[in-house]
């Protein structure tokens, strides 16, 4: 008992120190911090702009069709006279919503699947990873389209379909990580001294997975943004009058004469995707200093 208590005392400040130093390193990375700030700002704008704006996102106005950007309509208006500024941010809300929700499901499924396969090992591991191999053989986009066609074109279902087949990478990464952690001396020591499986997983395996998971989460969200946007080009996913960045870009590329219809949603998307890329890079460097 005494030894265990002492161990705990040693352990707690050490893990705290690790995350503090990670944050310290991250906060020194200007690019990553700026990116994080941009993502935060965009998220807040997506939440607030539709609430506080004077025009609704689906308010058509036949008197103001295809207006170029002006002080009245910052981003101009579309072919139905709807304000693009509001539409960009309500679309951002949908895009972010789908992406974050899908990423959450992906992480959850991926971590559980990978950790179980890696920790149990043996035949279970072989079978579980064979299933992953098979799913890897299917071109992702086609499979997504197949699922959405089968289960109907609703937003909730399309995000489930997206999440259902995006966890493959995550599960592989987590499995590999779990395998290597399982054979670390401190886990073996814990096993020998009779610590329960549950405690080993919650104390040693999951905290050590957290780094990988955080980096991968920062990579999964933009992937989900892109995928949900690509689906819009195939007429799947969000439908009018609701919108998403993918749908806005698809619309914009139909109406090239009105450049603002393409340029604003596309720029928002580029800014977001790059921010996530830099943030993920920064997180990776901060978590794994070499």
């Amino acid at each position, binding site marked *: 008992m005494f030894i265990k208590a002492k161990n705990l005392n040693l352990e707690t400040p050490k893990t705290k120190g690790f995350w503090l130093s990670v944050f310290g390193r991250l906060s020194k990375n200007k690019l990553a911090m700026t990116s994080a700030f941009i993502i935060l700002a965009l998220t807040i704008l997506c939440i607030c702009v539709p609430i506080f704006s004077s025009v609704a996102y689906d308010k058509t106005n036949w008197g103001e069709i295809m207006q170029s950007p002006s002080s009245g309509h910052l981003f101009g208006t579309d072919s139905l006279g709807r304000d693009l500024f509001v539409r960009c941010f309500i679309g951002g809300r949908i895009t972010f919503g789908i992406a974050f929700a899908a990423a959450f499901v992906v992480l959850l499924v991926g971590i559980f699947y990978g950790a179980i396969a890696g920790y149990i090992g043996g035949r279970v591991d072989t079978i579980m990873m064979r299933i992953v*191999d*098979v799913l890897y*053989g*299917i*071109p*992702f*986009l*086609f*499979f997504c*389209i*197949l*699922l*959405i*066609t*089968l*289960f109907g074109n609703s937003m909730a279902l399309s995000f489930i379909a997206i999440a259902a087949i995006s966890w493959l990478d995550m599960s592989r990464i987590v499995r590999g990580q779990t395998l290597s952690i399982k054979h670390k001396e401190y886990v073996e020591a814990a096993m020998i001294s009779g610590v329960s499986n549950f405690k080993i997983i919650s104390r040693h395996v999951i905290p050590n997975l957290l780094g990988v998971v955080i980096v991968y989460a920062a990579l999964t969200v*933009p992937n989900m943004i*892109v995928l949900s*946007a*690509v689906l819009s*080009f*195939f*007429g*799947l996913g969000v439908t009018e009058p609701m919108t998403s960045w*993918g749908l806005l*870009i698809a619309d*914009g*590329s139909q109406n*090239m*004469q009105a*450049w603002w219809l*393409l*340029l604003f949603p*596309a720029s928002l*998307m*580029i800014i977001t*995707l*790059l921010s*996530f*890329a*830099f943030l993920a*890079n920064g997180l990776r460097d901060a978590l794994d200093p070499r």
Partner: protein
Amino acid sequence: MIKFAIKRILVSIPTLLAIITLVFFLVHMTPGNPFDGERALSAEALKSLMAQYRLDLPLWQQYIMYLNDLIHGNFGISMKYLGQSINSLLFPDNMGGFWVTLRISIYTMSVAVPIGILLGAYAGLHKNSWFDKMVVSGNIFFTAVPTMVTGPLAVLIFAVTLRVFPAGGWGDGDFMHLFLPVVVLILAYAPTIAFVMRGSIIEVLSSNYIRTAKAKGLPTKTILFKHAIKPALLPVISLLGPMFAGVLVGAVVTEQIFTLPGLGVLTTNAATNRDYNMIMAITILGSTLTIVFNIIVDLLYILLDPKIKQ
């Protein structure tokens, strides 16, 4: 080598079979039939349709017959264009369907691979130069920003504003019509190849046998072309298998942007009309190609890597 090749092919057959089975049962176990949504059909018309598509048979019989069709290279009948075989839509006699997608993918890869390798090698040899930094940041940008954003922007700049290229369409497959879509695809994939090549050449150049070669006083050219290039290419080659499959899918997306008459149109039509047979066919075709490319790349890898050859 031949033994390995045969083994590699045999191993991938169950994978393909598993994919086909998964797709088939996913489609056929979902409640409702594909003719639900259409205008009300009379009971008899529905019955004859069901018979035409074998939907009246027990599921396992349908499955066996579908497999049998696939072995004979027959993807079945389209549910949208009644009576038309999917093969004639996927592989038409004139330019269209899969041929368009395949052509774009081949053009893309045959430019992206050499350019990617050259840029990557040059960047790796001049680490931390401005050129190197450009390759690295180009990789970050084009990995993050997909063709569905760069594509429409390219159309806006080069077709609508500058009027240098047509905004879309196949034309007769001429240079002007295919330039933008292929360049957009190249931009999406060449940076990744360059980045991997850069990393691997940096690693190879810092390895022991290169140091030995330098110490022996071999000229730089000999070191580079005789000793460094081959091992440095290996990671790039193992990247190409999954990448070609990715390019095929990327080409489908690009077709949507540039309104090319390839697999993209077929996919959209199939998705909006719930043409299950067509989507199944496209998914299975894509999976088969993915698996085939992975086999080819694995074999190429063995040819180049003396460590595995023995």
